[in-house]
């Protein structure tokens, strides 16, 4: 099916009515929406500002779930080693993780798509050079590449996004190249190139829209991957600075207390992370099934 397919109903409607058919995907989408809202409105929902160190009391540190702290409210998920309310920390951490994942995914999408489409459109030497580079990089595990880059670049948000983009753009490039070069081989593009239409017009009106469905699927999965990768790097101590803990950092901070039975410091942020990643993946999987022409009815 085509993204811009004509018909009695708009393509978006058709898409939505097919998306609704799968209960699990619908629930996953709902969960993703809830998490987005929670992350955006965290400053108003969270009972405490976890970044404000002056508001924390060490007397509240490492308390189990259900403890009523010096703030006078219940810490439903317990507190961490600094006396932070874990529920608040998780709400803010979801925001930090999502932000990194979405920004890295978006930049990777733009850079990768550009490389893939340029390679497909130009063909010849340019194609060989660009795609050889992409293939080479794809043979290198993303986690190792990101790890190495973080070691070289040092800690920080910009460095982290750079490392994630460098580790992931190749997946977008491969997808964009595959879709665009299949389209490039069709007669109508050949015909369009014979007319005085500008290159930009052919690329943006024909090649790019046809590569879009596949790219959207990859983007969904890559956002989830970026979030998981960020958590892994933060866990290894190579991610964000400690002042703005993402979910991975929260998990990492709790590990040393796990052995003494204070499981909640690591486990609850971890559960939040898993719910986030699995829901995004389920939504992405289902979009892929809908857009896959081989499974179309």
């Amino acid at each position, binding site marked *: 099916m085509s993204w811009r397919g004509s018909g009695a109903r708009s393509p978006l409607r058709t898409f939505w009515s097919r998306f609704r058919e799968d209960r699990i995907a619908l629930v996953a989408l709902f969960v993703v929406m809830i998490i987005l809202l929670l992350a955006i409105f965290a400053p108003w929902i969270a009972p405490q500002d976890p970044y404000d160190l002056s508001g924390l009391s060490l007397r509240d540190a490492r308390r189990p779930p259900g403890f009523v702290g010096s703030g006078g409210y219940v810490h439903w998920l317990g507190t961490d080693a600094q006396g932070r309310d874990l529920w608040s920390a998780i709400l803010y951490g979801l925001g930090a993780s999502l932000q990194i994942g979405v920004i890295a995914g978006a930049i990777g999408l733009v850079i990768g798509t550009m490389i893939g489409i340029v390679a497909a459109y130009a063909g010849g030497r340019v194609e*060989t050079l660009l*795609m*050889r580079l992409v293939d*080479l990089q794809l*043979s*290198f*595990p993303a*986690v*190792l590449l990101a*790890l*190495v880059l973080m*070691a*070289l*670049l*040092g800690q920080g948000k910009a460095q982290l996004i750079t490392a994630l983009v460098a580790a992931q753009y190749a997946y977008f490039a491969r997808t964009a190249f595959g879709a665009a070069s299949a389209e490039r081989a069709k007669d109508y593009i050949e015909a369009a190139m014979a007319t005085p239409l500008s290159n930009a017009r052919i690329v943006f009106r024909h090649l790019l829209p046809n590569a879009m469905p596949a790219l959207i699927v990859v983007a969904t999965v890559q956002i*989830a991957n970026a979030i*998981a990768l960020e*958590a*892994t790097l933060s*866990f*290894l*101590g*190579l991610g964000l600075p400690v002042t703005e803990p993402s979910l991975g950092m929260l*998990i990492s901070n709790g*590990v040393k207390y*796990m*052995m003494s*039975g204070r*499981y909640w410091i*690591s*486990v609850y942020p*971890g559960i939040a*992370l*898993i719910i986030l*990643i*699995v829901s995004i*993946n389920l939504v992405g999987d289902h979009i892929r099934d809908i857009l896959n022409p081989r499974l179309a009815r």
Partner: protein
Amino acid sequence: MSGFILQRLLQAIVIMAVMSVIVFAGVYAIGNPMELLIPPEATQDVRERTIQRFGLDKPLVEQYFLFVKNLLQGDLGRSYIYNEPVLKLIGSRLPATIELVTTAIVGALLLGVPLGIYAGYRPDSPVSRAIMSLSILGFSVPTFWVGLILILTFAVELGWLPASGRGDTVEVFGVGWSFLTLNGWSHLALPATNLALFTFAMMVRLARAGTREVMLTDTVKFARAAGISERVILTRHVLKLISIPIVTVFGLELATTMAFAVVTETIFAWPGVGKLIIDSINNLDRPVMVAYLILTAGAFVTINLVVDIVYALLDPRLRKGHAR
């Protein structure tokens, strides 16, 4: 054909040269290791001698060429922290990593393929659904998180298995191996399970998809018509037919699993190469970082080169210069 191999070989050499420059420059751009090496109360004289001993007073370009010259002679420098030749240090840690990775992927293969075949043979049974759910979890849940849950469950709560180290080892050829003792196996169990999960998920999917396809072919129909039992069909025919993609992916997985061992080794304090590199990043131990990165890049370039050449041998179309 020899032209093709020569071309790929040249490409590999160029890539290695570029990698060595990037790695060297990148690693030397971060932090000053001298602050760690020289105690603050050291005299100016000691300070200068130390800097000289590590060759850090020379210009960066000269340091690089010295590094390449030593590299070609098989000398990758000495670790700042352990004060040992880097190659010896990595060599002493390598067996632990190899042991862990091998256990993990062999385990994933031996368990994943039969379960995948079953899931493909009876796609609608509840057991198959459970197997597939497990494989989806294996794909989406981050390795480090699974590791933590394994520790929490089996080491902290149940107390069945140790959470760190290698346990008792037996020396063979001057190298200690954990898999030769019962205690070593108990230490190996959790990290290997952790590392295996992703490969396991991959094997299940491949075997399931392959089995579903093969079950519909004439091979199976005729075998059934000939009265061959389902068991023999699955073990003799299906297994043979699905093994080609599995073997291909298995080779590629080996490299990825080595990379993920970094995470697993850190969680379980497994004294392998992965833990060494994380420690050296945190300690700014430059020679170890540079050596690890160069060796890893070299390993990947070599694997790619071999894969390219093998594919070219199998597919004559690829030999004609153009890769596609």
